[in-house]
């Protein structure tokens, strides 16, 4: 293959790749726009005096944000949700990674059963799981609390984390691991130094997914939270009497803006 002929075949390929680049990028940003559109609408209503979600707009105000910080119950609910989400997502990611490694690296008798059980929470209705856990916790004498919610959230996030990490580990070339072990590394060290770095991006995806599953989860929290509501439970309660809607919207928008700022800042730092 002579240089010029390779270049000439490379050129059209590059041009086509360039065209595809624009299409893919445009697709991504379109999706982002569609995802953030409802949030933009919520933002508009959070700075307007409307008490219901309807037009026309009634005038600019920052009252709702003020009221937000004056409502300790609301702030506590948000903190509860954050706590439950962080711990349950970490647990779910850890357990999901374990299951993924087991399923992709080992052969054992209960493999089908483990696979089925790890995926099963996807098909169990949350209301059934919530009731069953309520009855079982009570029978054993475990009091309801944010910890019991966290346990339930870990279980229901497990299928997501397992599937995501598994997708990155399946069929992975065993040679790297075998080479490491031949060089004297123990299997745990092999996992730590060879497998996990490869799976790290998938672990991040899994963690964010598990966090998302937990943070907006309502049905299980309603059953298992005891006296400390999470934010979705609190929000649903306030919706009952529509007059408190604007403060809730302001809370949601504020959470969103803080999170966006956080990740933008992180990205800025990373780029340096």
């Amino acid at each position, binding site marked *: 293959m002579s240089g010029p002929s390779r270049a000439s075949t490379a050129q059209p390929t590059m041009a086509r790749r360039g065209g595809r680049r624009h299409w893919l990028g445009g697709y991504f940003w379109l*999706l982002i726009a569609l995802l953030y559109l*409802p949030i933009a609408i919520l933002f508009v209503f959070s700075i307007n005096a409307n008490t219901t979600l*309807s037009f026309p707009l009634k005038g600019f105000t920052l009252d709702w944000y003020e009221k937000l910080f004056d409502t300790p119950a609301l702030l506590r609910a948000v903190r509860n949700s954050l706590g439950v989400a962080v711990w349950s997502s970490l647990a779910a990611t850890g357990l999901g990674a374990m299951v993924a490694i087991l399923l992709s690296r*080992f052969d*054992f008798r209960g493999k089908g059963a483990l696979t089925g059980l*790890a995926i099963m929470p996807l098909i169990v209705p949350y209301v059934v799981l919530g009731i069953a856990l309520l009855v*079982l916790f009570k029978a054993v004498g475990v009091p309801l609390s944010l910890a019991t919610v966290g346990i339930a959230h870990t279980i229901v996030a*497990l299928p997501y984390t397992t599937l995501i*990490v598994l*997708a990155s580990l399946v069929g992975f070339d065993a040679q790297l691991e075998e080479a490491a072990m031949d060089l004297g590394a123990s299997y745990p060290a092999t996992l730590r130094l060879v497998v996990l770095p490869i799976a790290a991006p998938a672990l991040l995806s899994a963690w964010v997914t598990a966090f998302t599953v937990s943070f907006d989860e309502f049905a299980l929290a309603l059953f298992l939270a005891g006296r400390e509501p999470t934010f979705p439970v609190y929000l649903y309660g306030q919706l009952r009497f529509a007059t408190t809607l604007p403060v809730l919207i302001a809370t949601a928008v504020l959470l969103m803006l803080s999170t966006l700022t956080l990740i933008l800042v992180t990205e800025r730092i990373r780029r340096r």
Partner: protein
Amino acid sequence: MILARRAGAPQGARPADPRRRTFWILALPPALGLALFLVAPLLFMAALSFRTDLSGTLLAPFAPTLKHYAQLASTAPFLRSLGLSALTALGVAAAATALAYPLAYYLAFRAGRRAAFYLVLLLVPFWTSYLLRVMAWKLMLGGEGVINSLLMSAGIVDEPIAALLYNRGAVIVTLVYVWIPFAALPILAALGRVDVRLHDAAADLYATPFQQFRRVTLPLSLPGVIAAFLMVFIPTVGEYVTPLLVGGTSGTMYGNIIQDFFTRAANWPYGSALAMVMLVGTVALVAVGLRLVNPRRLLER
């Protein structure tokens, strides 16, 4: 997927396998967690489905009955709803997976160092209450909402389009829209295993970009595609929140029926029977599906 220390030696034949301790360390926590917090509740649910009604102590022995299963078998609307929900879930999963693939591809091969940031950017909207986001969408899509007002004032339609909301179509579109970012994640994870040099090699061999995709990228990403499909399909069979919010009267799904028997009727036994049928049916469907898909693909490699 057998990983043996020496090729051809099954793991069980070597009791001195140095990975055995690791195996148990990895296996015990998930097994314990699942046994306590998933299997036990499932057994409770199964037991409930054979209970006549809710009267009496819940954890005491009772005389089992098949009456709920019999009643379900003779209630055509419920069975029809189950079938329809399964079909809807198949459609949603197929659409979401297909639409998520370009997204995953972009993140894997085009986004460069920004990929993690873009990924989080995609998922962060889901930390805002789903309820509130759907309320905002309903404002846009309702009979006197923004879209209809624009269409009417532009003269494109004479009457507001009622079909944008409160029907099965709205449920399907909403579900696909909501699932796309999540479906992209397993595909992305699988694409992460594709070495870019394989693309270059394919180009060197005069493969068109499409051939390169079909022969190199797609097969390697297939586990991720399957994972994504399952991740969307399975929970969508029992979905109830979205039908409740945007389905109106014609868009209800099987999950709504189960939900209602628990939260509107306090009829846990019947609700459990409905849930058991959905569970067994979905597991069977997935098992059959995987059997059909996997052997062929694995052989091809």
